[in-house]
């Protein structure tokens, strides 16, 4: 044992710098992997703990106040698995928050009375103003963090075109309507402010029924029972949200981050395995004589294999521990980013199981693959080893014999070198191929977000005109005439929307006078409705209905039958929508509804001017105007910013991985070929020739992998994007795969590889012809 320990120490000391560079990649892997493991284990439980701590109701249903009654609450209480039901009055409306992170932000919002006594859906005050503020409001953490509102800041909500100014009196944390993903955002007002708002919007006053469930109850069953109870009472539901859906939405980015971290840690782990394998094989080749001397002296193969394998195991363990330690410096940063998105705060503590898993995985995987590589020494007879051969077999095949192969000799030398480094080249091929998938993904995203933003935005948004005008009742025709006379306006469309119920399911209905004229046709299957009895259903209903079916649509007490003509998508509504013709829409209402007007301009740059002009010039006709182009542009800019960061990050990671692999491969190669390079120099080869020859031997494989992956991206990238968008509820997307752009990114990647290889080969200049004689 002592003998092996001495050998291990000798190996560690001899290859100190090499083990350190290997350790760095293990450290990075451990850091990323531990972040993923800790987030995976702790965010989920932190969410559940907070959920319990704040007595959050697993199921919340919101109905219009006019339809709520004690019987409904009684029915909920009597539902088999409902433990308790509590009701609260609130105001539910679509509201636009002004200057939310530098732009206007529209969202369905529920305003609660903070003074209401509640045993369910409690909240925690994260911070509260010490001043007496005018029009106080308590906003959720998400609005504060993401929207950029601090205590005592003014926050303006625009409801139906009317601005309501509040002062942030406190920031709260709750687990139901606390982030964008849940589809509803909450805000709490003191009794007086709440009553004032409720008076202004009596039609938007709602009652929220919050239900806790019995232990072991199935949430799906409870949701079904509650939906049935609501159906039986003929009540329209404005929102019904269960805790699982909300949790999914609020922890979506965390899950995505864990997935990305896990993917990156897998790549770095694969790189570590490759490196340890590569280094061990190199060490065996260069140390074969010494190892054979040890064998000849009586050391067993197992002892020699252990002396090679264990240093890697020890280094992996040490650097894994360091990496895990460092991850606790990074985790708080990640947590603060996740808090902004998820809308709930959580602290990370040391996670022993994650640490053990990360250390065992890294140490185990590296030791296993190192052992597999080191086993080669077992097959080597001492005498072969002493002669410098790793096996008794001699080299058999001469690839590209210079005498017989046509072509430039210097080029053939590159090919020969390529074959001599085939294992490294296979790894480089695989790594380059996989990294090109990442590059192609980000390149395509860049193209569709920055170069052709309309492609991306059409998938994310619903119909967007340049200007939206909310007419006062009976002024629609007059406004339409004005648009016809205005040469800046291309055309306008009447648009309407309302909450309807289709066969018991609550969805948002959109009506348009002519769907063939919309810019963003969201119909992905079949056709848009044209006749009064036609309907196109949202993707969320695709499982239950098919084209040609008849569905019943209900608004209040009016129910009409419609024929399904197609299916439409909406990322914002998770596919819970439908489209109707204007006639069909109007037939659902006893009283005639006033549509709003989507205005499409000849030149979108006039949007701001027209928005202001129509509001100020025609106060009797126009209730409100929205510069829809500006809103879209702001959203577009936000996505552009995120995409540019993502593309830069992916490029940086790619360069780092390529740099690291080439560094290790070329450095080892230079050590191994030191004598050979000396011979070349003695023959009269210049440093530049040898640099190009060595760097060039890795280029063909890397170029082929990059170009192949880049060309194949034309076929696999649409499938990847289709999958991602379908997960988000977008069945049809306009994502364009630009061959030219893919090639541009591929060429950039190749250039980066060439430059890195040449730089890494520069030490060849320091190898002198005389070195081989001296050594």
């Amino acid at each position: 044992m002592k003998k092996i320990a001495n050998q291990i120490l000798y190996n560690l000391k001899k290859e100190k710098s090499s083990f350190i560079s290997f350790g760095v990649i293990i450290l990075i892997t451990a850091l990323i992997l531990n972040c993923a493991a800790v987030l995976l284990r702790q965010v989920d439980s932190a969410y559940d703990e907070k959920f319990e701590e704040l007595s959050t109701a697993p199921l919340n249903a919101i109905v219009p106040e006019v339809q709520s009654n004690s019987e409904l609450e009684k029915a909920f209480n009597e539902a088999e698995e409902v433990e308790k039901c509590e009701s609260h009055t609130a105001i539910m409306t679509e509201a636009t928050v002004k200057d939310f992170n530098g732009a206007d932000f529209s969202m369905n919002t529920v305003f609660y009375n903070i003074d209401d006594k509640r045993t369910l859906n409690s909240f925690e005050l994260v911070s509260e103003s010490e001043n007496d503020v005018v029009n106080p409001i308590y906003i959720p953490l998400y609005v504060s963090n993401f929207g950029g509102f601090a205590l005592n800041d003014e926050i303006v909500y625009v409801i139906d075109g009317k601005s309501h100014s509040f002062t942030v009196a406190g920031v709260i944390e709750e687990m139901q309507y606390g982030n964008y993903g849940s589809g509803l955002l909450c805000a709490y007002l003191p009794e007086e402010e709440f009553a004032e708002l409720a008076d202004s919007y009596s039609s938007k006053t709602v009652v929220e029924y919050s239900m806790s469930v019995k232990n072991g109850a199935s949430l799906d069953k409870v949701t079904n029972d509650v939906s049935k109870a609501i159906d039986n009472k003929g009540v329209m539901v404005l929102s019904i949200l269960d805790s699982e859906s909300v949790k999914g939405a609020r922890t979506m980015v965390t899950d995505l981050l864990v997935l990305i971290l896990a993917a990156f840690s897998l790549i770095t782990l694969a790189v570590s395995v490759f490196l340890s394998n590569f280094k061990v094989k190199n060490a065996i080749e260069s140390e074969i004589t010494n190892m054979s001397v040890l064998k000849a002296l009586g050391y067993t193969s197992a002892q020699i294999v252990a002396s090679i394998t264990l240093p890697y195991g020890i280094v992996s363990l040490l650097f894994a521990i360091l990496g895990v330690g460092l991850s606790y410096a990074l985790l708080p940063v990640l947590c603060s980013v996740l808090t902004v998105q998820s809308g709930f705060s959580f602290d990370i503590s040391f996670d022993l199981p994650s640490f053990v898993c990360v250390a065992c995985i890294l140490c185990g995987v590296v030791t296993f693959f190192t052992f597999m590589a080191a086993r080669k020494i077992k097959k080597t007879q001492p005498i072969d080893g002493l002669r410098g051969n790793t096996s008794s077999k001699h080299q058999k095949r001469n690839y590209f014999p210079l005498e017989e192969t046509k072509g430039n000799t210097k080029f053939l030398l590159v090919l020969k070198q390529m074959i001599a480094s085939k294992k490294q080249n296979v790894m480089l091929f695989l790594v380059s191929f996989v990294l090109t998938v990442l590059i192609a993904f980000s390149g395509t995203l860049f193209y569709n977000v920055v170069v052709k933003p309309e492609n991306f935005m059409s998938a994310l948004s619903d119909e967007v005109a340049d200007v939206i005008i909310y007419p006062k009742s009976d002024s629609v025709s007059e406004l339409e005439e004005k648009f016809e006379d205005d040469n800046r306006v291309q055309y306008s469309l009447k648009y309407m929307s309302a909450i309807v119920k289709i066969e018991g399911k609550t969805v948002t209905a959109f009506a348009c006078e002519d769907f063939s004229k919309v810019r963003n046709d969201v119909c992905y299957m079949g056709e848009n409705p044209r006749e009064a009895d036609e309907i196109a259903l949202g993707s969320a209903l695709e499982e239950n209905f098919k084209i040609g079916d008849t569905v019943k649509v209900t608004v209040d007490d009016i129910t009409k039958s419609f024929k399904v003509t197609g299916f439409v998508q909406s990322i914002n509504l998770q596919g819970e929508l439908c489209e109707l013709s204007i006639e069909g829409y109007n037939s659902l209402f006893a009283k005639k509804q006033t549509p709003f007007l989507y205005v499409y301009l000849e030149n979108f740059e006039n949007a701001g001017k027209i928005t202001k002009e129509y509001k100020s010039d025609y106060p009797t006709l126009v209730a409100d105007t929205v510069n829809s182009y500006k809103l879209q542009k702001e959203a577009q800019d936000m996505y552009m910013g995120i995409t540019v960061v993502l593309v830069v990050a992916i490029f940086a990671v790619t360069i780092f991985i390529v740099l690291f692999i080439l560094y290790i491969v070329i450095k080892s190669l230079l050590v191994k070929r030191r004598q050979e390079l000396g011979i070349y120099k003695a023959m009269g080869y210049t440093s530049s020739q040898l640099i190009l020859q060595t760097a060039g031997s890795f280029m063909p494989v890397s170029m082929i992998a990059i170009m192949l992956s880049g060309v194949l991206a034309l076929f696999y990238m649409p499938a990847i994007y289709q999958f991602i968008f379908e997960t988000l509820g977008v069945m049809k997307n306009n994502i364009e795969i630009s061959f030219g752009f893919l090639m541009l990114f591929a060429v950039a990647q190749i250039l980066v590889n060439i430059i890195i290889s040449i730089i890494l080969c520069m030490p060849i200049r320091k190898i002198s012809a005389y070195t081989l004689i001296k050594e």
Partner: protein
Amino acid sequence: MSNKKEIIIKATKLKKSFITGDTEQTIFEYLNLNIYKGDFTVIMGSSGAGKSTLMYSLSGMDRPTSGEIVWDGKAITSLNDDKLAIFRRKNCGFVFQQIYLLDKMSLMDNVLTASALSETSKKDSVKYANELFTLVNIPEITRKKFPSQVSGGEAQRAGIVRAVINKPKILFADEPTGALNSNNSTAVLDVFTKLHGAGQSIIMVTHDKNTALRGNRVLYVKDGKIYGECDLGGYTNDSKDREAKLNNFLKEMGW
């Protein structure tokens, strides 16, 4: 007799020293030497006398600490590394004691790798390489083998072919038979003799008397300078006079 010959290399006030820690170890100093065209110059001396160091300095493989080396009227001491490499490819051929063939290439490929640097076409290079292989008695089948598959003598003869493929002005050989057995040594030395007979200038470092007998001019390096010089005349297979002359010379030198 040597004075009438054309000088290829003229070394003036050559100094070579190594610094180890604070100590400077001088190998040779104020060394002046001429190398003549068509000569088979042998450099002898005791171990550590600086024979190889001198030869590699003259060939541009190593740089002297000071002094000047002029090849055909052109100083090579001021050339940068790449220019020196180009100079070597045009003017020098090297044969090493350890042979130093590229082990992943066949004997023929080793030779053609060197010829790739010349302006000769590949076809002509292959033809000339085959002629040289025939000259050194390496059969066609052996030319396609890897260095590890042939004997030391065959490998060294292939090394000589590689060294002369670009028709160098001088063939430098550093103990070319040092790692070979008697039969292989003789075969290798015969090749040198043949080449010299064909007009090839050679500088060879050796401490073997039999090897030295192949040369026509013997230089003895001692105490950091050319201690003595012996003109042996042309090589003949049975020349007891030459052997006696060399023995006397070496005795004088303190061998």
